[in-house]
């Protein structure tokens, strides 16, 4: 289909501000009379605050006041494991206990040093298996796990823990726990029986947790004016986050103005208000002091409360029939919930296996256990991306054992349109994984390169890897608003957060597409909630492109329908007799009879009522959108839309091929070549998609080779609070060039055919990389991510591979 805008590059309106430094992030704002808040954070991993004596600090010159957990939670702290604004019951080092505001930060820091806070030490734990053991310490005062019923305690016998540590399953009677503790699909026994003449792999695995480390620390500034809260913050999701932040601060939705023109990196943890409640501190302090309050967050604080991935310790058994079909997968994962948060990463890992490889039988069991380590939660492909690098080398071992090519075994096990997946057997809206595999292999020249496989050159050896990634990539049921004034310009109101994907702009172009308007005649209205923006789903889970092209297109089509009604009423005929082109609505039979968009907008404003949002709004609009619409009503010609909910799963898939050269003396490797291809429906914005593919690639390299979360086992102190210790990939860890491509076949459930991609782009690269490392080492399966240089050297030397001190807080260290 020939589109005006979809599939074409454009210059998003915020790029100029980014390259000139003019665009403002929360910490760039200042305000007359502003004071500065600093945090007192927990110095120990698990404690209870017994007493706070602030008398000396409050008497110091320049100190304006403190804010404590008792003040922000007068009815007691929430009974959940989620991050709190402030707490008297810290469960990790660095958790905010109180905030103190002063005339400047030096004074605030000096006053904090004068506080007398008494803590009662409580037992702490860093490895989930230590907590699982009978009699082992619990990370929370009231248990070590959290599920839909609340806090609980999960314990295994000493023998069960020992069995799991030894790399074998803990036994069928080992208790499970967590948000989704277990599921089963198909006949597992029959699946393994079918694999008896094929290939069966069984082994243990680990994946490390590691922090988001978004480049912008989550600083925030707040002030109150005329009963309204103005909050300059950071967020992946503009209206979705503000909608919930109002509840956290305790202010009516219509009285919160959340201002967020740009966010310095969001990879899951800035999507929802409950994972960034620290923004409520300056808001509540400003209310208390009746002054603007700036709270800057340091890199160390960002590490602690900025969120991290759940680490896995697992056991997996996979069976392949002689024809290469993955007939059974049995999975037991112990996942690390950290000291706050948690998640269902293990469930997502199993769900991913059933969708990505269309496995005939899957049994999944999970013990989700808290530790007194950093806050855990959503992080780029939570679960799907941890399991991708574990499965890929197993697929290769199966291919080698069955005499198949490594490409063919993936084609045999790939998702296609009409397939279902997950425990609910949810249909995919469309899927073209075989096409993605073949296209990537062709672009990489995969077959021809097979002759280079395991080629030696001195100490160096070549490894080839192919990997796949998956994440659900679209939601529905959200709202859209477009407005047109008497000048005929289209104003697209977007509640999508500006997290760096440009999806707020790319999805807006679906409205321009529906109205067949030149982009130059359109403005995106966003950046602050008093611009009256519709609600949308948070910008997480790779959903934005799918979700918001639906809402923008729908709102624009509402405008088109209203244009036709107005034209028919004024010029004769029925609305169906009219079409749109070149910014006019005109009769199909006589294109000379019509009205310009400016004229029809002018007429709509004269007519009022439903044409200007003063009547007949769509049923089921979200409350937030109703408020926005009521404030826009009567100001211009309005198109407004509530998107119906769909039940099918729009998937995002990626495939990556890579070639590495591994040095057998140092254990280091260079990535010589890499091609990543997205299978995400029709491409909306090629440069934006390319950025997601290469950005995900860098994250995949971090997951499979570098990133880590270190804690001192004696005191529970974090040792990887900075970029350097946590090993975020640099330019030099990534290839000189990453080639990106896309399949570009439309999805039927989206008006412009699009699906999302952000998360799987990491999974396929991490999978390709572990496959390539395994390939270079004659097919050795490490069962780990990351595979560090130490592990590679130890393997080559024939010594213990698990001798990686502190690397993952689990049985490898």
């Amino acid at each position: 289909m020939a589109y005006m805008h979809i599939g074409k590059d454009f210059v998003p309106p915020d790029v100029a501000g980014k390259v000139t430094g003019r665009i403002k992030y929360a910490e760039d704002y200042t305000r007359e009379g502003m004071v500065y808040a600093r945090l007192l954070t927990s110095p120990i991993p698990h404690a209870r605050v017994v007493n706070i004596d602030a008398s000396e600090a409050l008497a110091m010159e320049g100190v304006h006041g403190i804010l404590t957990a008792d003040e922000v939670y007068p009815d007691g702290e929430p009974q959940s494991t989620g991050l709190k604004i402030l707490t008297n019951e810290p469960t990790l080092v660095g958790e905010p206990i109180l905030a103190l505001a002063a005339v400047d930060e030096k004074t605030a820091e000096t006053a904090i040093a004068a506080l007398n806070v008494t803590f009662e030490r409580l037992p702490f734990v860093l490895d989930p298996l230590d907590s699982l053991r009978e009699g082992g310490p619990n990370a929370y005062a009231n248990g070590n796990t959290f599920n839909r019923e609340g806090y609980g305690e999960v314990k295994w016998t000493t023998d069960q823990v020992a069995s799991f540590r030894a790399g074998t399953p803990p036994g069928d009677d080992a208790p499970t726990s967590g948000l989704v503790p277990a599921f089963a699909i198909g006949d597992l026994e029959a699946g393994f029986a079918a694999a008896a003449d094929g290939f069966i792999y069984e082994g243990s695995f680990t994946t490390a947790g590691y922090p988001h480390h978004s480049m912008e620390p989550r600083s925030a500034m707040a002030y109150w004016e005329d009963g309204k809260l103005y909050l300059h913050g950071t967020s992946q999701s503009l209206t979705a986050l503000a909608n919930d932040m109002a509840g956290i601060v305790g202010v009516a939705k219509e009285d919160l103005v959340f201002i967020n023109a740009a966010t310095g990196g969001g990879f899951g943890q800035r999507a929802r208000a409950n994972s960034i409640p620290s923004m409520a501190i300056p808001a509540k302090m400003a209310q208390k002091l009746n002054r603007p309050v700036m709270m800057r967050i340091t890199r160390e604080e960002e590490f602690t409360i900025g969120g991290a991935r759940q680490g896995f310790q697992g056991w997996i058994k996979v069976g392949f029939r002689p024809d290469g079909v993955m007939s059974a997968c049995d999975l037991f994962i112990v996942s690390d919930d950290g000291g706050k948060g948690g998640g269902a990463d293990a469930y997502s890992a199993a769900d991913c296996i059933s969708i990505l490889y269309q496995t005939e039988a899957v049994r999944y069991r999970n013990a989700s256990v808290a530790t007194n380590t950093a806050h855990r939660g959503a992080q780029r492909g939570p679960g799907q991306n941890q399991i991708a690098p574990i499965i890929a080398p197993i697929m290769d071992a199966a291919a080698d054992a069955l005499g198949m090519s490594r490409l063919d075994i993936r084609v045999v096990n790939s998702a296609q349109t009409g397939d279902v997946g997950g425990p609910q057997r949810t249909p995919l809206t469309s899927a073209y994984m075989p096409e993605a595999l073949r296209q990537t292999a062709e672009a990489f020249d995969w077959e021809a390169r097979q002759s280079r496989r395991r080629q030696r050159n001195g100490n160096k050896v070549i490894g080839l890897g192919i990997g796949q990634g998956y994440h659900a990539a679209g939601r529905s049921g959200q709202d859209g608003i477009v407005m047109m004034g008497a000048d005929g310009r289209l104003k697209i109101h977007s509640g999508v957060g500006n997290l760096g994907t440009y999806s707020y702009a790319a999805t807006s172009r679906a409205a321009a597409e529906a109205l067949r308007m030149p982009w130059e005649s359109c403005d995106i209205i966003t950046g602050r909630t008093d611009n009256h923006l519709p609600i949308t789903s948070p910008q997480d889970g790779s959903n934005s492109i799918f979700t918001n092209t639906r809402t923008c297109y729908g709102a624009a089509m509402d405008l088109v329908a209203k244009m036709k009604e107005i034209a028919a009423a004024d010029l004769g005929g029925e609305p169906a007799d009219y079409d749109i082109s070149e910014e006019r609505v005109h009769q199909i039979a006589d294109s000379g009879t019509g009205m310009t968009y400016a004229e029809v907008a002018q007429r709509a404003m004269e007519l009022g009522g439903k044409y200007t949002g003063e009547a007949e709004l769509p049923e089921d609009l979200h409350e937030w959108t109703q408020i926005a619409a009521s404030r826009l009503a009567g100001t211009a010609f309005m198109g407004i839309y509530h998107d119906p909910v769909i039940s099918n799963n729009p998937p995002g898939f990626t495939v990556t091929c890579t070639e590495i050269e591994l040095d057998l003396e140092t254990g280091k490797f260079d990535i010589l070549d890499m091609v990543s291809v997205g299978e995400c429906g029709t491409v909306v914005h090629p440069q934006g998609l390319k950025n997601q593919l290469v950005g995900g690639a860098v994250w995949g390299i971090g997951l499979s080779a570098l990133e880590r979360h270190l804690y001192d086992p004696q005191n529970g102190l974090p040792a990887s609070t900075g970029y350097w210790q946590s090993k975020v990939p640099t330019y030099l860890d990534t290839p000189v060039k990453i080639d990106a491509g896309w399949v570009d076949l439309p999805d039927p459930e989206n008006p412009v055919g699009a699906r999302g991609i952000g998360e799987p782009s990491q999974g396929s690269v991490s999978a390709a990389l572990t496959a390539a490392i395994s390939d270079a080492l004659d097919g050795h399966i490490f069962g780990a991510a990351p595979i560090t240089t130490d592990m590679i050297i130890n393997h080559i030397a024939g010594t213990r591979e698990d001798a990686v001190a502190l690397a993952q807080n689990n049985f490898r260290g």
Partner: protein
Amino acid sequence: MQPVNPQLTRRRFIKGVIASGAVAGTTSLWYAASGQSRPAGAVERMLRLNVNGQERTVDVAPQETLASTLRYKLGLTGTKLGCNRGECGACTVLVDDIPTYACSVLTHSMKDGRIETVEGLEAPDGTLHPVQQGFVEALSPQCGYCTPGQVMAAVGLLRVNPNPTREQVREGLAGNLCRCGSYDSYLDGVMRAVELG
């Protein structure tokens, strides 16, 4: 291989910090940022700084970092703080053409230096510097928080090596992290800037 700018080393500013007796701890910036109270015995000094071609007079505390002065005294918030501990490069500015982590040098050591920030690159008529233009055309930034630092590191590199290979750009920018992982797109942008001249 043609050498990358030999002056682009961490050593230079680490040495600078040591010579100035600074502590590159996280909170030292916040102390310095205030300028309203200072350690007992410290001497307040009005400094004349050459920033983006203009002489600016500013009250600088003894332990104040250049990033603090630029952001909080001179309002040049294009210079970002990602780590405030010399790890990320978000604060990169040019001092006498050399990319420098502004969070890790003291403003008092800059008084004879020619400081350039991202705000100083545009021509008076609004024309973008070729690196900025290259970054726009290649859509190099994602979230944009590391972008001013990437821009300044690239400008510094191109001043000593106007025709670098992609590999040389990769090495030249290696002190600038991008958590969004937009390295490939930044490299595309710098190579485009080379074409634009």
